[in-house]
């Protein structure tokens, strides 16, 4: 009974603490469309083509209507990499851009998210580049906020490689994902991008590589130079199929008609 009371109290405290935090999925609302959906398998470069894959990837791009039809090119998007490890463990990597009010760019916007079945590491962006000048405060300009069960931190991208940020991110990631999950996420950083599947849009971010980049903040210290990325991916033999199995973990809408062809 005591333990149950403790868990209930902890849940209540957690809910109260999180009440003031923005919800990632609030930025993605309205009619959703499926713009891209392709399956891949990943293997070591040296492995035989018929050897069992190390993991399966499903690259999905979801677009959200809401702006005018003429601005369809710039509708909000979720660029998702749905990963299934050989053990069946699943992850969702996401580099996305939600609805942004141009008059309130100081408000936080979703940017990168790495989630497992048990936890999510989110990076939010706020402000705009170029507004920081000598006479404004140190917190002005384009900045980022990490939110994860293992901790939070506000940072500027130019400091990502600093000793301070590396130690902080290692601490947050270690407290968010258990060892096995971190090992899986490290494996995803071994993907080589000799080719980078990209959608035919003006968005430079509509590529598979951009979805995988969701890991660069969460796993900053494990990012490898290109010559050490020894995994390659090839298109999977099967059609992608239904997305129903991912609806919960990736929070996908129920109905996903194809994104209308751009004029």
């Amino acid at each position, binding site marked *: 009974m005591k333990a149950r009371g403790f868990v209930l109290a902890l849940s209540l405290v957690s809910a109260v603490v999180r009440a003031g935090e923005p919800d990632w999925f609030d930025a993605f609302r309205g009619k959703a469309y499926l713009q891209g959906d392709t399956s891949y398998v990943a293997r070591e470069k040296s492995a035989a083509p018929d050897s069992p894959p190390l993991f399966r990837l499903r690259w999905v791009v979801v677009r959200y209507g809401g702006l005018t039809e003429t601005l369809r090119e710039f509708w909000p998007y979720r660029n998702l990499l749905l990963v299934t490890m050989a053990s069946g463990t699943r992850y969702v990597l996401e580099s996305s851009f939600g609805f942004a009010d141009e008059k309130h760019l100081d408000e936080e916007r979703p940017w990168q998210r790495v989630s497992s079945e048990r936890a999510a590491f989110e990076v939010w962006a706020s402000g705009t580049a170029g507004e*920081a000048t000598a006479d404004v*405060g*140190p*917190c002005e*300009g384009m*900045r980022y906020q990490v939110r994860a069960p293992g901790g939070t*931190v*506000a*940072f*500027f991208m*130019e*400091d990502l490689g*600093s*000793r*301070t*940020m590396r*130690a*902080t991110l290692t*601490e947050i990631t270690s407290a968010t994902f258990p060892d096995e999950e971190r090992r899986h996420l490290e494996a995803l950083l071994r993907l080589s991008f000799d080719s980078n599947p990209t959608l035919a849009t003006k968005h430079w971010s509509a590529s598979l590589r951009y979805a995988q980049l969701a890991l660069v903040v969460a796993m900053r210290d494990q990012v490898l130079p290109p010559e050490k990325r020894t995994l390659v991916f090839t298109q999977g033999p099967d059609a992608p199929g239904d997305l129903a199995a991912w609806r919960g973990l990736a929070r996908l809408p129920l109905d996903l008609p194809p994104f209308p062809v751009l004029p």
Partner: protein
Amino acid sequence: MNSLSKNLLFAFLAFCAAAARSARAEDAPKVTLEHIVDGRGNRVCDVAKAELKADGTRRSAWVVRGLLRSDLMLTLEAVGGQATLHEIAFAGRPSLRFASPSPGGRVTATSPASSFKYFDVDLSRRTVRCNLTRLADEADPDLLAAVSEYGLLKQGLEGGSSYTPEESPIVALLAARKQAPHPSPPIRKRVPWTEGGPEADELAAAARAAVSR
């Protein structure tokens, strides 16, 4: 344990307690007082510095009275020349704390609302500056103004560019603000305060209380 052993043990413990009390009495904080005056000798503010050393731990407290018409308090606890704990507070309001496990180690800055860890080598980076100013504001919205005023006062003092370990929070917060040095800071001088009096006693008592906390 027989009764003789018990008595011996009791006597030994009593001796240790008495020795500790005696050591504490002997280690009463040493307090020095000074006025800071302008170029014409007018009083700008007063400073009391109290220091206490015991069992490998050095504690010190500075009270700067009259800075923005209030007290700026700086305290330092250094254990064996390794771990340090600094605190800075203004006008008796909540303090900002800086704890470091060793020189050059990762510093944990803590306000009443949140904390942030950083390395001193990254003090000039915007990430550290932004987080430190946020923590300072969380502790007390006037704290950064008081730190700037103290920085200006230091610039006007002879040899003011060198900061002591007690002033480490000032150095960190000035770096966070990245304020350009004043082109012609007003001249300030230190004058030992030896004449005593109720004001001196009160200031000394404040420093003594801070160092003994």
